[in-house]
């Protein structure tokens, strides 16, 4: 009988606690805290060289870059440790002049030695960052002639050094404390990271959250508006929106199809316009392009067969724009003076697509395997693949959807084990150097295994970009590459994706910027 009573007591207790909670109001968010709910933290590693290429949201709060950028991706003398930089006439020596009096969170001053140590560490062999490989190949030596001066010596003339070490790309330019890392080791540093950014590390609970606290009067943002900044990992969208409604978070990622509903409730929606280009490509064979896509008419037909406006509207809820240039990162267009004219947009013309296929001797179509998979930031991935395959079916191409996960596609792509098959990716938009870095990997034949474009003319232009130090000539070459990608139909650009973020009603204006994998919460927190 006693056991039964105990059970009843437990039940009553639970009901009582439920009642207490139901009676209480939802916890109000103090204005001095900023809480951001994200669907993924990527690797959750807090060490720049290991944090990889997708985690700048919180790392850029803790660490300063050698070269800063504005939220729209322009290199800035105000946003980084270097207040100015210059190259030698042969573009093989880059000198960076460091801001004086900047301190790490443990009180140590940031010196040229820290910068040298950080860069070497960030591009070292164990690094998994986006551009460690090219920088490792390019950098011959780093000199520190004074405590506030760093000279980077390259093996070849180059213009890319400031951008590659800036906030506009990956994490190679993040500066970490040499003495601290050497004394505690890499493992301890990854758990208790110290940087010189406007927010210092407080706590990480893997799978749950990362909490940061503001540094008083930081050179980047002055007296911060938010004393703490917490990044919460909330994979489920319904939960993120519920947290926003309850006032527990201030910024959440929302999917394109729930934007209207959230907006209707009065929550401001901030867009990162054209944050990524969703583009498809054919896997090359071991020795280059094989199969029907070798024929330019087939490539054009496959582009004309797709109704991009319909895809943008019905699959992406109108939060996307038709794309015209294969691998065309639109943020770089203005940098190089490339103008995407209306006639470059592929019309939806299945009749002409059929004619082109017939002209190519494929009137009865051909077999085409289409990989279908989801991607981070692209929950619509499989639906889009199904829709595109459906359009191709309509013009006689016999498509077969192959449901896989992305790594399986990437392996087939890199191994060239499925020549002619089609896959896709939502490539983050970026500036011209970032765009060049992408093209070098995906459109330059020598860059096996990631090459997706086999075109001698493009190879020639890209190889010149590498050696060129005259910006005008670079712009001309880049415009040439984009023009050729479009005129030869060297891929299937689908849409540019706008990424929506919902914020609390009291957050105010926020410029999420246009730098890949960064949301510039420091600018939002700035008291300057």
């Amino acid at each position: 009988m006693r056991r039964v009573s105990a059970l009843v007591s437990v039940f009553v207790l639970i009901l009582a606690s439920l009642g207490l909670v139901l009676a209480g109001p939802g916890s109000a968010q103090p204005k001095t805290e900023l809480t951001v709910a994200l669907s993924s933290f990527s690797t959750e590693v807090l060490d720049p060289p290991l944090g990889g290429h997708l985690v700048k949201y919180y790392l850029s709060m803790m660490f300063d870059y050698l070269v800063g950028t504005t939220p729209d991706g322009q290199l800035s003398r105000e946003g980084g440790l270097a207040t100015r930089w210059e190259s030698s006439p042969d573009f093989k020596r880059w000198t960076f002049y460091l801001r004086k009096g900047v301190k790490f969170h443990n009180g140590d001053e940031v010196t040229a030695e820290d910068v040298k140590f950080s860069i070497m560490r960030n591009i070292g062999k164990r690094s998994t960052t986006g551009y460690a490989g090219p920088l490792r190949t390019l950098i011959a030596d780093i000199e520190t002639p004074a405590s506030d001066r760093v000279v980077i010596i390259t093996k070849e003339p180059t213009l890319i050094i400031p951008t590659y070490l800036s906030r506009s790309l990956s994490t190679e330019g993040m500066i970490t404390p040499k003495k601290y890392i050497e004394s505690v080791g890499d493992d301890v540093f990854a758990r208790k990271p110290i940087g010189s950014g406007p927010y210092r590390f407080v706590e990480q609970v893997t799978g749950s959250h990362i909490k940061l606290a503001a540094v008083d009067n930081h050179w980047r943002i002055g007296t911060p508006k938010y004393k703490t900044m917490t990044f919460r990992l909330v994979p489920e969208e319904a939960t993120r929106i519920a947290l926003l409604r309850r006032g527990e978070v201030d910024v959440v990622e929302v999917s394109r199809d729930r934007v209207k509903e959230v907006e209707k409730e009065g929550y401001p929606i901030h867009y990162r316009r054209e944050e990524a280009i969703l583009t498809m490509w054919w896997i090359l064979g071991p020795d280059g392009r094989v199969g029907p896509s070798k024929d330019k008419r087939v490539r054009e037909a496959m582009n004309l067969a797709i109704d991009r406006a319909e895809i943008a509207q019905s699959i992406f809820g109108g939060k996307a724009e038709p794309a015209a240039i294969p691998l065309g990162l639109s943020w770089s267009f203005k940098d190089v003076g490339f103008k995407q004219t209306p006639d470059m947009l592929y019309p939806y013309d299945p009749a002409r697509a059929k004619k082109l296929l017939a002209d190519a001797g494929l009137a009865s179509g051909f077999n085409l395997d289409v990989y279908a998979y989801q991607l981070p930031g692209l929950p619509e991935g499989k639906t889009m693949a199904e829709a595109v395959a459906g359009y191709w079916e309509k013009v006689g191409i016999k498509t077969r959807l192959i449901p896989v996960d992305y790594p399986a596609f990437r392996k087939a792509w890199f191994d060239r084990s499925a020549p002619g098959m089609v896959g896709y990716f939502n490539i983050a938009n970026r500036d011209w150097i970032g765009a060049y870095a992408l093209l070098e990997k995906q459109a330059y034949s020598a860059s096996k295994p990631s090459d997706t474009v086999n075109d001698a003319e493009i190879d020639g232009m890209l190889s010149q970009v590498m050696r060129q130090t005259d910006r005008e000539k670079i712009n001309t070459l880049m415009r040439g590459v984009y023009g050729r990608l479009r005129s030869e139909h060297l891929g299937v650009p689908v849409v540019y994706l706008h990424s929506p973020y919902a914020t609390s009603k009291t957050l105010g204006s926020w410029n999420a910027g246009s730098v890949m994998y960064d949301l510039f919460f420091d600018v939002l927190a700035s008291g300057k």
Partner: protein
Amino acid sequence: MLRFLVARVLQSLVVLAIISVVVFVLARATGDPLYLILPMSASQEDFDNARRYLGLDRPYVEQYLSFVGRALTGDFGTSLRARRPVGELIGERLPNSLKLAVFAMTVSLAMAFPLGVMAAVKKGTGLDRTAQIVSVLGQSLPTFWVAILLVEFVAGRWQWLPAGGIDGLSSYILPGFTLGWFVVAGLMRLLRSGMLEVLDSEYVKLARLKGVDERRVIWMHALRNALIPVVTFAGIYFAILVTTAIVVETVFAWPGLGRLAYEGISSRDFPVIQAVVLTTAAIVAVVNLGVDCLYALIDPRIRHAR
């Protein structure tokens, strides 16, 4: 008894050894984790470096022996994704899962006992039918759907309870209820059928004839004897709640073992997958061992028969 115990422990160890091979092979059969870890721009050299650094360039047999050898000392290696010792990650997540499972099981027991017993006692009445409906719904409604509905309405629209994360007792209610409902259904049905059988037995009739108070007959004499299958079910389900609450932990942003498994699988983090599966298997094996021993203690015929 000792021989019986030793035999069961050995059986459990053999099961764990087999599982270690299976999980090692299957984890690698899913593909190469470097295609997720490294950026699109990574070169072949980057792949080779990362493979070497992460120890993935060694022969499979060597990798397996190294994994088993270290696992025996409690070292499950380093997570490929989080770059932290896997043992540490499990140490962080397992208590969260345990706490949630304890809460869910408490809720389940607190609901299942009165419902199950009263459904049997009031067989055929409205109460019985209500209990049956609760039971059918609990076992047939998908957990993810229940979880999403609770988040959407109870947390989001009505704002009665927290939507996710661990922040005080109130944050346990929605995930605990979601997890517990399925168990309530099972426990209640077992209790009801067990009670119906016992209530019809000779000794209960005798107790009633002797004039024993009806409440005492139900809650002491009958319930006690209907409990054996319930205890077994609850024990096994507790292990399941601790180890497989992937959906609930994902929806409610609960940093538990289930989420760790999900993260490990989606990023092909072999050391994490191996460690979580082995930990899960060990927990289930220990619970089963405990249940077996309990049986053997309760009923000597069982240990002799084996």
